[in-house]
């Protein structure tokens, strides 16, 4: 079964998502910060990454995404970005998702995400590979 890495510094959100994803038999790995996330990606080579935006810094998630998309070994891993940033900046990122210069991710969702939405989004992105 596909391996999913969740990079998020909120342990409760992580736990909730883990429960949902494991119920569908996905293998779930966890990283509690952007830096740890980058390390874990290299170690376990996940099939999908779920990435939070605000971690060590308000836009750490963007850094991580850019870093991975510029890395030949990992640029093919789809990234699903989860964030509450919409309110903070007033920008709807949905339209920019997929524009490699601006927001180099494959999907974008606003927290909180319903279990069925999370699963369908994960399936969609894994199917893209």
């Amino acid at each position, binding site marked *: 079964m596909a391996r999913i890495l969740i990079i998020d510094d*909120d342990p409760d959100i992580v736990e*909730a998502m883990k*429960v*949902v994803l494991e119920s569908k038999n996905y293998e779930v790995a966890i990283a509690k910060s952007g830096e740890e996330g980058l390390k874990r990606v290299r170690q376990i080579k996940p099939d999908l990454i779920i990435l939070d935006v605000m971690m060590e810094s308000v836009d750490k998630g963007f850094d991580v995404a850019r870093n991975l998309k510029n890395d030949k070994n990992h640029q093919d891993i789809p990234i699903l970005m989860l964030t*509450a940033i919409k309110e903070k900046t007033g920008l709807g990122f949905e339209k920019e998702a997929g524009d490699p210069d601006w927001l180099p991710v494959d999907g974008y969702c606003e*927290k*909180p995400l319903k*279990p069925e939405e999370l699963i369908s989004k994960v399936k969609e992105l894994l199917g893209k590979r």
Partner: protein
Amino acid sequence: MIAKEFDLAKDLIERNYWLIRLRWIAIVGVNVTVLFTSQILKLSLPVFFLYAISACLVIYNLIFCIFLSRIKGKESFVIVNRIANAQISLDLLSLSGLIHFSGGLENPFIFYFIFHMIIAGILLSRRASFLQASFAVLLFCAMVVSEYSGLATHYDLGKFFILNRYNNFIYASGVSFVFISTVYIAVYMATSISQRLREREEILAETNTLLKQQALLKSEYVLRVSHDIKEHLAAIQGCLEPVASGITGELNPRQLDLVQRAVQRTAKLIFFVKALLEITRIKLTKEIKMDYFYFQDVLSEAIAHISSKAKDKNITVNSTVEPSIGRICGAQEYIQETVVNILANAVKYTPGNGKIDITVNDQGNTILIQIKDTGVGIPADELPKIFEEFFRASNVRELEKDGTGLGLSIAKQVIERHNGKIWVESKQGKGSTFSIELPK
């Protein structure tokens, strides 16, 4: 500082225009008076000179008018101040001329100089006002002395006075004393009053800036707090939902009921916090990104957004957009959200089998969007408050318990950020019409 100077210049321009308007009235007054005294009172006046001066008044009033409109937009305080000074000096010259040709010292209109002293006191600095007063006194003395000494012709008012007084030393010096003192006292009083007014205006402006700063601080505080609250709420919702949807194992009916209640309440709270974040975010954004977009697209998407709910209640939604409306400039997402907001309200508060009519008209530089429903309407006494934050009309509160009371205030913020206008007309029980005027 520069902005303040700009404001001062603008303010002074306004007052310059006021002076120009007053002069038009004065010109009419001069001509009527000359006509009246020469034709009806039959005083022998040198009407040619008097009309010539009034012609001069017309000419320089026009020139000032044109000049002021030319410098519009690039006004500097120094230039506008010079114009004001020039206007008053020219007026003093004209007035002296008019008085000289109509009896000099004997003309009771001589005290009209006081008006100019008051005008100077309002328009100019205290120093400039006293300079203008001295100029007036100089002109006055020159006239009195030259007429007294015979250097200049004295134009007699004829029947107005039985005896000539211009060559009576005691009379001439007495009137001169009264005149000069009145002129200076008038300037002193006018400048004192206007100085105090200016000081008060400055204090008001400062208080205003302070209030704005505090409003900004408050908004920042609200943004921070709501954002933190929303993060926790998202986590709560994230933990509750897998339980409610049975992912963690089946619940017995009582457990399920309670968890579902918790999920629903959290969802409502998240919705409220999001609305609060949104309105705060708009308030704090200095500039919202604007671009050209097709208004028709926005409207179609907005209608699509509410169509299923409208269908459930069997509400007909009609829309007509004037074909000449193509692209308009604005923040598309915000505008769309605003239209959705108002349409969603219309659907929510229109009873089943009702009707919603949307018309969009091209008005040249603006478009007018009107959303008319056959809903419950808004009580007349509550209409003025409808766009206030957290306000919900009483009849609507009875109809639906939940609601943030923020939807329309967000709409108002958005439209006003586009320099547009939003308003509502409503009759309780008959329906409401929301109108939005947006620049293209």
